[in-house]
């Protein structure tokens, strides 16, 4: 039986009094691909940030491989480094994630902060540029790239650290069909590498390709869970969660 990477027990979170998550409990088994489904503002992004140790639950517990994710834990360099190396978050808006002057610097940022050897960084960045087919963008400024290119650079900047868990916030949102296809192809290739994926999305048509399990969120609460086929068959629940008309 697969080990649980994340365990959430009755997690609640509010932004200045506005509830974003209410008593959410779930587990993320290692090597599985979990899709978080829900309309805009249902709490998907908040949940991903909690899983990435960027936000901390107001109540309830979040565990990563059995260790509680708390602010106190992240104050320890050893814990923080180990966690950041193993869990990566790709933000929905690439402009948030691409803050360096060039694509090369962007991809090298994470490994540099984690203290990798400089030569290893140079060679691994070169490999990542090839893998994501962005070698020609190496010295370009990220703000001059197209949406699809930005997304691939954002993915490369996280994937270079070879995390075991990849958290993806709306990875295919606002992309043209070709770029969307490239991202889906990449996500499918990570399955063979045994990566654990948590994908926030409302693209129901991609669900069967990118997920093994689904959780539907509605106004910060879990409204349903199951396999893609089970979720897509439950039209009443999808309609209530504002995912279909």
């Amino acid at each position, binding site marked *: 039986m697969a080990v649980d990477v994340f365990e959430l027990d009755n997690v609640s979170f509010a932004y200045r009094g506005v509830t974003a998550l209410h008593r959410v409990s779930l587990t993320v088994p290692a090597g599985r691909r979990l899709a978080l489904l829900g309309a805009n503002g249902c709490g998907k992004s908040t949940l991903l940030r909690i899983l990435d140790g960027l936000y901390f639950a107001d109540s309830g517990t979040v565990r990563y491989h059995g260790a509680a994710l708390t602010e106190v834990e992240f104050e320890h360099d050893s814990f923080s480094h180990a966690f950041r190396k193993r869990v990566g*978050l790709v933000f929905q808006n690439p402009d948030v994630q691409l803050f360096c002057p060039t694509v090369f610097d962007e991809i090298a940022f994470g490994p540099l902060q984690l203290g990798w050897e400089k030569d290893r960084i140079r060679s691994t960045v070169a490999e990542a540029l090839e893998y994501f087919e962005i070698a020609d963008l190496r010295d370009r400024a990220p703000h001059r790239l197209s949406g699809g290119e930005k997304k691939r650079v954002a993915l490369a900047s996280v994937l270079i650290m070879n995390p075991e868990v990849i958290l993806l916030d709306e990875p295919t949102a606002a992309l043209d069909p070709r770029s969307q296809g490239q991202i889906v192809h990449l996500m499918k290739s990570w399955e063979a590498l045994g990566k654990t994926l948590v994908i926030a999305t409302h693209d129901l048509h991609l669900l069967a390709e990118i997920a093994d399990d689904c959780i539907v969120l509605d106004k910060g609460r879990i409204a349903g869970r199951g396999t893609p086929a089970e979720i897509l068959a439950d039209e009443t629940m999808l309609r209530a969660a504002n995912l279909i008309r």
Partner: protein
Amino acid sequence: MSEGLHHLVHRRKGFLDRTLGEISHVVDRSFSAELSSANGGFLQQIDARVKMAGAGILIFTAAAAQSHALVIGIWSIAVALALASRLQWRELTTLWTGVLLFSGFIALPAIFLTPGEPWARILGLTITHQGWRTATMLLARVLTTSTLGSVLVSTTPWHQLLRAMRTFRLPVVAVVLIGMTYRYIFLFIQTTLDMLEGRQSRLAGALPAAQRRTMAIATVGVLMSKAFELSSDVHLAMQSRGYRGEVHVLDERPLSAKEWAVLLALALLCGVALWR
């Protein structure tokens, strides 16, 4: 800038149109600088650190020179480098026009007010030899240093300039902040353009001045709010990739012996020119 936006900018001349025009001008200029820094001319092949140090030496020499000939000589070198680097003549003349007008306005009183030997009289005012010399020297220096600065910026991609700054002992955190500021200024320029375009597309006829001011203030407020939100998200994105309050960057390759020799020779030449 989109064609539609150009059309809007040129069609009317209200506050919003002027703002759109100015913002898009900034974007266009930055983009053309980025293009010219990648066009394969002479200076584009040279390491940014060498260019920055070389420009620094020449600027110092022009500022310290006492002879017009030396300053004009350096200006000629700057122009030759600009042309060898395939910079557009129009860009240079635009720069010089602005510089001459601005510094000419500042230098003008010195022609008449500097005490010395009378040289000529205009409208009952005496121009002195010393005054003329001081004013023309100021103009020559400003022209030369601004040309050197412009050539450096136009032939060097922004990220290479930032790297060069690090080499000259500017703290890493300052360089990273400058880089991020530059990058996000462009994002906000784009956001501002989008907001103003969105508003423009819903306007029918001219608004009263008071309402235009209210709208402008509201736009600033929205942008401020977006800026705070974005800065918070960027910080989270940095944290997510291991940032712990101290930025680490890759080291540059050391300058080669040939590059050091070029810089040394330039410094020596300038030293000799100043001494003579």
